[in-house]
Structures are given as C-alpha cells and as structure tokens.
C-alpha cells in the first residue's frame, strides 16, 4: 500500500486547492486591471448593422419602404432613411508565448515575464468580453467566441504549464482572416518565425499588436565577471570571460532586434510596444486597448 503522504486524498486535495486558488487570483487580477479602462462606445464609425443611431441619409432608389424613417421624413419634403452604426463584433486572437524564456524573472519582487503576459492577455480578454467582442487564444487554437465561458476557458488554458521549448513562436494558421491579433512575448528567439507569421497574417488581412514583455535585467544586462550564460532549459550555453565587456554589444543587439520588429510591424500595419515587468500593468493594458480601439476604426 502506498503510504507516501504526498498521495493521500487529503494532501492531494490540499495541493489541488493551492494550485486552483491561483486561477481565480489570475482572473481577479485581470478583471481588476480591466476595470481601469473606462469602456466607451466603440462602434465602427460607419453605417451598418447595430443598435445605435448613426445618421439620416436621403432615401435612394432601391431602399425598401420599411427602411424609411417616417418621422424624420415628415419634417421635410424628402424621404430619409435612418441608418444605424455598424457594430459587427470583432474577433481578437491572443497569443501568449509559453516558451521557457518567459518564466524568467531577474528579481525576487518582480513577476515573471510569463505571468505578466498572461495577466495582460486575460485583462484584455475581460475588456473585449465587456465590449462584446469575440476573442480566442491562438496558443491552443481556441476559436474566437464571446462570453464568460470563453473567458474561463482561456484562463484555464493560460494556467497550463510552460512548454518545453526555450522560445515560442506564434502560429498564423489559426488566425481567422480579417481578425485582430495580439502577440505577447519577449521576442528574443529567432525573429524569422515571428516575421514570417506577421507577413502571412498581414496577407490574410489580420492586424494587431506585438507586445514585447521584457525583464529589466534583460534591458540593463547588469552582469559582471566570468560567466556561463545558459538558456532557461539549459540546453545551450555561452561563456564569457568578462560579462561587463559584452554589455554594450548586447544592448546594441537588443536595440537592433526591437528596430527590426518595429520595421516589420510598420510594413504590415501592426503596432509594437515594449513592456517591462517592473512597470505597472495598467500602462500596457491602456496602450493595448487604445491600439485595438484605433485599429477598429479602419
């Protein structure tokens, strides 16, 4: 009989509860973050299907009789048609890098990059849900839907443990044509995949934003002395005899990487933003929301 205390029903339940308790916390954190954004009306600023009044336009040939707004028409000689604002729901696909590199945190009092990225993604999902948009998680290919259930599903997926690869890459195939997309990653891995995905997505009419989540240590490179750097999985290593001597070169390369990503996003009509884990998450969520709102205008 197995007497390992770790597998008694009581301890199993205890551990399960401990793990599960983090999940509502993530959701609560995300919801609290989302609450900082005042949800305004974000219609499509053009006539179409919707509930809100948009404009009166003179009736044209072919307008149905029942489309004429008689009350407005009665005030003048012409016939007017009452148009409503187009409020077609938008699909937003979120992708959160689940590579091992996202588990990095340079300081004890900072969340890992992955945690910050998940909170941002979920907060955005909460906002989208309130805005009536559809949203999905590109990691698992969850098709875009709306509603609390979708929110719970995404939160569940986000809680899955990190993958085995050091760096993750987005997948363009799950992006529905014409949808929006938000990619959250550190973009420190091979940029070619990201660029390829962006290009392919742009080809399919997908627009969106890249949010580069970086730890302050990755921006500052505060290392010194003889050091062997390893990837988070430990698979690859790089040895330097004097780490401080590499600082400038590293920072150059980082700036180069950012410039490269910015250039690609510019060409494809995407947006690029760098977020640090020591900054308030609110900043990033406001930027994201503003970007999506603007993007929705076009």
């Amino acid at each position, binding site marked *: 009989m197995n007497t390992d205390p770790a597998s008694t029903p009581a301890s199993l339940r205890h551990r399960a509860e401990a793990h599960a*308790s983090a999940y509502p*916390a993530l959701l609560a954190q995300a919801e*609290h973050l989302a609450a900082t954004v005042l949800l305004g009306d974000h219609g499509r600023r053009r006539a179409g299907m919707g509930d809100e009044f948009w404009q009166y336009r003179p009736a044209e040939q072919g307008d149905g009789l029942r489309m004429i707004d008689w009350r407005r028409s009665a005030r003048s000689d012409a016939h007017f048609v009452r148009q409503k604002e187009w409020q077609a729901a938008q699909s937003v696909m979120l992708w959160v890098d689940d590579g091992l590199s996202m588990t990095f945190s340079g300081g004890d009092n900072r969340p890992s990059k992955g945690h910050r990225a998940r909170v941002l993604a979920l907060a955005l999902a909460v906002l989208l849900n309130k805005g009536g948009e559809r949203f999905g998680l590109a990691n698992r290919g969850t098709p875009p839907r709306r509603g609390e259930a979708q929110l719970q599903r995404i939160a569940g997926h986000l809680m899955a443990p990190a993958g085995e690869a050091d760096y993750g890459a987005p997948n363009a195939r799950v992006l529905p044509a014409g949808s929006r997309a938000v990619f959250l990653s550190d973009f420190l*891995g091979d940029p070619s995949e990201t660029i390829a995905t962006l290009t392919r997505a742009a080809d399919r009419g997908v627009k969106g934003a890249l949010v580069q989540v970086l730890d302050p240590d*990755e921006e500052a490179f505060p290392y010194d002395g003889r050091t062997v750097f390893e990837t*988070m999985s430990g698979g690859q290593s790089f040895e330097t005899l*004097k780490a401080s001597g590499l600082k400038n070169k590293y920072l150059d390369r980082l700036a180069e990487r950012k410039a490269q990503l910015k250039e690609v996003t510019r060409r494809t009509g995407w947006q690029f933003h760098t977020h640090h884990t020591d900054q308030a998450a609110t900043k990033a969520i406001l930027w994201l929301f503003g970007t999506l709102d603007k993007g929705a205008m076009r």
Partner: protein
Amino acid sequence: MIGAIAFSTPLLLTALIALPILWWLLRAVPPSPIRRRFPGIALLFGLRDDENQTDKTPWWLLMLRMLALAAAIIGFAGPVLNPDERVPGRGNLLVIMDGSWASARDWPARIDRLEGIVADAGRDARPVAVVSLTDLPPEGPVFQTADTVQAAIGGLQPNPWAAGDLSGWAETLDGQSFETIWFSDGLAREGREGLSNILADAGVVTVIESPRPAFALSPARFEDGDIVLTAHRAIGAGAREMVLVALGPDPSGAEQVLARELLEFEEGAVTTDLTLALPAELRNRVRRFELEGIRSAGAVTLSDDSLKRREIALLAGREDSEATDLLSPLYYLNRALVPTADLIEAPLVDALLASPDAIIFADIATVSTAEAERLTAWIEDGGMLVRFAGPRTAAADFDPDDPLLPVRLRAGGRSVGGAMSWGEPKRLRPFTQDSPFFGLSVPDDIEVVSQVVAEPDPTLAERTIASLADGTPLVTRAALGEGQVILFHVTANAEWSTLPLSGLFVQMLERLAISTRPADLSAEDLAGTVWTAEDVLDAFGTVRRADTLAGVPGEKIAAAELGPLMPPGLYAGDDRRVALNVFGRDDTLAPAQWPETVTIEGMTVTEPLPLMGPLLSLSLVLLIIDAIASLWLAGRLRPMRGAVAVIAGLALFAPQTGQAQEDSDIRALEATAEVVLAYVETGEGQLDRLSREGLSGLSQHLFNRTSVEPAEPLGVDLETDELSFFPLIYWPISERQPTPSAEAYAKLNRYLRSGGMIVFDTRDGNIGGFGSSTAEARKLQELARPLDIPALETIPIDHVLTRTFYLLQDFPGRHTSREVWVEAAPADAEQVEGLPFRNLNDGVTPILIGGNDWASAWALDARGLPLYRVGRGFGGERQRELAIRFGINLVMHVLTGNYKSDQVHVPALLDRLGN
C-alpha cells in the same frame, strides 16, 4: 627575545620546493565561472570578448595562496620557539622549599617550577624528595618516585613562620649523596649556612630565587599620639612606592578600608616609616595594617589592644590646690595612665556624657543621689568604676547597701605601722590563682600603712582580689549589672602606701584593663595566663577565624615563637587581646647570601613555545581572505554587496535623531496615499495579529467587491501615532491591555469629534449579551469611560448601516449576537409616511460597540482563504459572508456617511427640479 627555532618534523619542509610548481599550476587555471540562466542569451551568441582579464589569476591572489600554503607547510613541520635542551640528570634529587611567609608571594610560580622539576626527574627516573623547611619530616627526607611526589605537590603550602633550628635535622642528611635544588625565599636566616654546607657535601646545589625583593611590615607603635609603621624590604634597590591600608570594621560591622596612605622607599633604603594620624574613633577600630598588593603574611600586621586608647575619667574629692603635686591624689594615676589612655578630667555628669571606659574616684566618698543613679545606670551598662580610698572615704558613713562599693566598709579605717601605731607596715600577700593579678610578682618594698577595712561578710573572700599579708583586703571587686566596681583600699597617692610608687601599680591597672599594654610583653607580665587564638594569619596574609586551636600559655605568647601550635594571629586573654605578628618589632630583612659553589637560578624559565597553532590559523585566515577575494573577482559578491550596503545604511541611519520624524512622515504618507484601515495595538501579539489579518481580509473583500481599494491595514499605537489619517479604527478588547494615557484619550476624543469611527469588539458575543459582566465588557467600560461617547442604542432596523452597500439586518462576526450598539438617533426623528425608514440626516456614528469578533470572520490568509472557522458547514459560510457584508457596509458608512439615507429625498428632489 627570540631564541632558537626547532622543527619537530623538519622533513616536511621539503614540501616548500613544490611551491613554485604550484605557482605555475595556479597561474594556468583561471577562476571558475558563474552559471546563469538568461533568456537574452540568444542575442549573445557570436559575440567575442574584447579583453580577457580574468582568465589568469592575479599575482596578488597567487601570492596570498602561496603564503597560505607556505604557512600550512611550515606549521605542520612543527616549529618550536625556545626548544627545551635539557641534559638528563641522575641520582637522588632533594628539593628543599623554604616554605616561609616570604615564599607565599610567588607560591604558584614556585609550585609550577617544582612540578616541572619533578616531571623532569620522572622522565629521568630519579627518586625525588620534597622537603619544606617550615614543616620538616621528622626523620630525614624520603626519596620516592616522581609520580608519588607529583601527587603530593598540590598539598604543599607555605607556613606563616620561618624555619626554626635546622641543625638537628641537617644531621640526618649526613653521608648521603644527592643533588639539591633549593627554593629559597631570598631572606638571610640563621642556620642556613650549616645546612647549605652539608648539602654541598652531598652533591650539586642549585638555588632558585625570585629576583623580586620581599617586603614586610613591622607592628604599629605609638609615637607622640600617632601611629607609626615601619615597612622593610630585603633589597634596597631603586625607589619604590607602596600603598598601606588600615582595615577594620565600619559601624555596621563589615570590614572596610579605614585609611590608605602612600609609602615611599627611597633609593637604597631598606626601611621607611609612615606616620598615621587617625582620629581616636577610627584608630580604635583598626584591626590590621597591610601593604596593598603583597600577598604575604609579612606584609600584614595585626593590631591589638595596644593601639586602643581608653578614655578614663579621673575625679578627685579634694580640691585643695595648695598641696604640692606629689600629694595630689591623681598624680600617680596620671603618670600611670597618660602614656596609654585618654584622660577626662571633668565633673561627673559631664564625664558620664563622654561615656568613658572607666571612671576613677580618688577618695570621693559621696555623690549626690541623682549622680549616683546615673552612675549606677552607666555601670550596669558595662562601665567600670574604680575607687581609691582616702581620709574622706574612711570618715564617711556609707549606706550598708551602697551599690557603688564592692564591700561594706567599717567606718574609720585603720592605720598600721605609722608613727602613732604599734604595728609594722603591712606587705602584700602573693596573688591567688583566681585573682586577675595572678602571675604578677610582688616586690618586697611595698608597704601599706593605712587602709580602709571591710566589714566581715560571707562574700568578702570572693570579692577580694588582692590582700595584705594579714589577710585584710587590699583590692575588692564586685559586679554590678554588666559592669563592675573596684575598690582599692588605699589611696591613689603615696600617703597610705608605697604601692603607687611601684611598677606593680601600673601592671595591676593594666590587668584590670584600666590602662593598656604600653610596650612589648614580658614573660613575667603574662605568667600564669592562658590565651586562645581568635584570628590567625596564613602565609598569604589572609585572616581566618581560629576556633579549633588549643589555648597557649602566656609565657609562650611573650616569647612569640611562632610555629604550628601558635600561628601568628590575635590571641585573647582574660579581658584583652594580644597580636602575634609574623614580623616582629625588631626584625629586619636581609637578602640571603650563598656560597660561590651554588648555582642561582631565577624563578622563570623560557618555556618552549610551539608555533604550529598560530601558523595554521594564519594559513586558515589567508584562505578565507582568498575565498572572498576569489568571489569578488568572479563578480559573485554582488548580492552580498547589496546586503552589506543595506546593513551599512541601517547602521548609519539608526542613531540619527531625525529618524523618528522621518518615520512618522513615511507612516503618514503610507496612511494617506490610500484608504487604510487601522487597528489598535493592544500589545498582545496574537490579538494584534488577528486584528491585522481581519482588517487585511476585509480590505481584500472591499478591493474585490467595491470601488474602495484599501492598502494593507496599519496598527496604531494610541500613545504615539497620529489617528486622524484613518477612517476607521478597530479596537479589540482584551483584559490585559494597558489603559491609554490622558494625552492618548485627548487624541481619541479629538478623533471621534472630527468624524472618525472606533469599532470596539469585546469578542465575547458567545458568552453573554452586551452589558453582562464579562471581563472584556468590564475592561471596555474602564477603557471607554474617559471617551466622549454619545448616547447609544442597538442598531435600529432603519439604521443607515443596514443599507450602505448590502441590505442587512444581522451583523454577525464569529459570534451572532444581535446586540451591536451605535449612536442613538435623535429623539425627534420621525418616519415620513410611505417611506421605509425615518428621516435621519447627517453624521456617522462615531462609535460602534459589539462582541461578535468580526476580525476572525474577516481574516484571510495569503492565498485568500479564510483563516478561522466560523459556525458549522454551509451555514457557517453564510455567516461569514454576512460578516464580510457587514464589514463592507461599515466601511461604506464611514466613507460615504448618510449618503444612502439621502436617497429617500430623491423623489422630492426630482419633484422640485422639474416639472
């Protein structure tokens, strides 16, 4: 002084050859790298180092390691400074210890040296005998194995006397052959030469002497009313200062230093005198004098009665000043007493006030009744009245029961051997054994021509302590209370007898302890007395009580030959005490002289000093420095540096006085930057933790459910902290919490008046309703009495608390008592028709009192799970939920006031606004 260095394993030193090789090896091996996980590594691939500084160990680090290694190698080779190069001896070894008081000062050093010598003898398998000259083995030295002797060494002690006659003992050594080591005390002594000659015949003699001179203090003596002490030293080299202290009991009986004087030996002088002028009162208390810092009986001298000066009142009856001095009744008494006593010549009443040791009446027959009463009382308290007879005494008519006379006197007295009488002058009879004068020899030339005569009486014989040859009493004595009355049946001048002219007169006064011993004791003085030791001195100069020593006859005391049976000390006789000191009045100190054949050594030897330990420690320290330096070079000291900086910062800031101000500023910022709930720190750790957890939980619930987003709660100390920052203060009641000070109450009242709210929680809702006398309720009454509290009522059904956020009718916490008290509504509040609640405007209740232990129900742990059980099962969870809702309502009420009450006016407002 650095002597030779030897190595116990010199071969190990060859390992030093390996050092250069190691140098080369270490130089080739760089310090090991740190391994770091770092996602940014993808950007690093392909980069090259510009400079490769640290791939070789820096020379100074190498040097450090080399030194550490060299120290270790040399350390293990076992270096010894001043190695012992002893030549083994052979044959019997006799060790002679002087063992006198002069050896006591460096006795431990002597014993150390002796142990070394005996141990060496043990290594050479020589028989050893150790002999102390002050404690001689009766039949010659016994040579034993070193082990046996070693065991006995611990018991060797110096004795507080010097060696006596050694010639007899020295003869037992004749014809033997042995080597001698003599631990000398450095003082010349008689009989030492004979012994040393015998020893030189027997074999090699080595003398071990301390180069430090011996010191001694001769007994104190009187010169012109001052105490004079003479200090001696054996060698008069160099000027030296010493401190002399006089010790004695203070009024409470504890021994303390009564006087402390500096004593200076001049260059070349072997003696120095010190005059001490002490007040009589202090002087009488001195028990002994010591040379401070010299641990030897010679440097201690005990004082006895000879230092005490008695106060004696002399009163004479006849005041005719025309008489010549020699006829004065007090003349001889004065002469006898002045050298040793302080005399008081004053009227009787004044003399009694001075509480003298004795009062002497010279031919005073009558005293007034009042005087007699006081005199009797004084005697009964231990005073001594000595009366001398005379013509007045003879003529007086005494009351037969006069207590101031030891015997009844026959009126008239008698005259014998005078010009007008038939008889011959009388002589004294020798003193009997029970007389205090026993042992004093009676000179032949004492003649008594007149005397007063006692009435025959059964007690006369026992009261007589000296009598004439015909048996008539000369001196009688009777006890009265604790004191005594003594009558000399003759005059105090030479009128009636020649006794006052003789030395016997002085000796008799001395024996009666009227006067004190002026000078050295003579065997004759002390003949027939027995003395017992009260205090004895040991060789180190320490005074001990002596209770077990047998009595010593007076003759021996007079001879003052110290020995095991009569150690130096304080000896008590009948009614006085005599000090026997180690160093006599006429003794001198002189350094010992040795024949030239004798080798003289000092007390100390250069000990071999092993250097292994220090060298290995040095090596270890160097290695630690190396470890730190290596870490620093490799850049791994970074986090530590942070910690060091923090500690240094703390150390810098902690003592600054501005810190408190800064703290309170920081605290004010903390309290005001966001909404912060507060609790009163009761000083009970567990209760304070509960309050913090409870308010923290409530803050989390508020954060999740409402637009109030409080920061972590703060504890407030009512005495020191500013309260006005906090919207709500939770105050749990425990019986043991201290009552706040008046200033704190003033602050609390200010807080309540300016819109604050205090929630009192007695946490006893399960035990009794509010107002029942639980301990907490009583404590609450005590605490709240000085507070400015308005009239209270239990929360009415329409109180705004019931609807500030949630609609509530119960206010449970961990308990579910319904008695929760708030400020009472004004009496004129009336219910508007058609509305569910009364028209109550404005004001937050300043106080809320309940006993439902809300904090326990609110408390959450770090993961957001409830900490304490509330109720049972799902019902309990519901109760917890209600408690949380109550808390939310409470905070909302504090923050929004009666906003919800104002909602009743909405219809009226709308009505007025529009239409």
